[in-house]
């Protein structure tokens, strides 16, 4: 897992409701440009660009320039700092219990 931003960075980036809405919108689309984000946001393009910079710094969003457009996509791994050891082991043990069930079926049919 890539860990560049800290929990604080990620929290700070997502604490602002407008920025969070921007992030959610990006997360729901495969890729989206600033124009599309602005159209449905009710804030200026400048404000959206500012939010995008913050999200990018926090490692939550990636950008891909194409001609005169820049397309933004969400980076789920950017939420890594929030998904700590505990969520790792929560998934780990659930999966392992499923393995155990299969193993027990094999050795004690």
């Amino acid at each position, binding site marked *: 897992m890539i*860990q560049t931003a800290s929990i604080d960075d990620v929290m700070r980036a997502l604490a602002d409701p407008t920025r969070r809405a921007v992030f959610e919108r990006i997360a729901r689309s495969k890729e989206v440009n600033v124009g599309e984000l602005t159209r449905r946001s009710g804030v200026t393009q400048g404000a959206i660009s500012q939010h995008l910079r913050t999200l990018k710094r926090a490692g939550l969003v990636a950008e891909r320039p194409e001609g005169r457009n820049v397309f933004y996509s969400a980076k789920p791994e950017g939420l890594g700092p929030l998904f700590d050891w505990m969520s790792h082991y929560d998934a780990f043990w659930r999966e392992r219990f499923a393995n*155990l069930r299969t193993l*027990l079926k094999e*050795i004690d049919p």
Partner: protein
Amino acid sequence: MNVTVQTRTEEIVIDELFPHAPETIWKTLTSSELMGKWVRMAPSGFEPVVGNHFTYQTTPAGGWDGVIHCEVLEVIPNQLFRYSWRGGHESNVGYGAPLDTIVTFTLARAEGGTRLRMVHSGFVLPRNETAYRNMSGGWTNAVERIGAISGS
């Protein structure tokens, strides 16, 4: 936001009924060979004896070599098995961060088999972080809840 000021410890609990005798399940929990099969990491140097030290090798991260250090803390055949589970490194955040936890398996005979309860305890979390986990709908849903947590 004071996300890192206050901390709390949390545990993971899994409690399931298995259609097998406690003795059969006990074998899978305390035999090196069988542990390797379902935990998917073969323990190194394991003996089901209190005081035994063993390790698991998992994926390294940053300054951490990926070795999980365990010590057997309690063994009551067919009933209870407890060991410590330590690893991680100060240089990491999230996966790979310092970890000092305890894993406890409890077996209880039940109708139709055995109730197996696993408690992995001692996770130290920033207080606010709790709400990020326990998410049912994936990470976008988690993000939606951040507003409520951060008080915005």
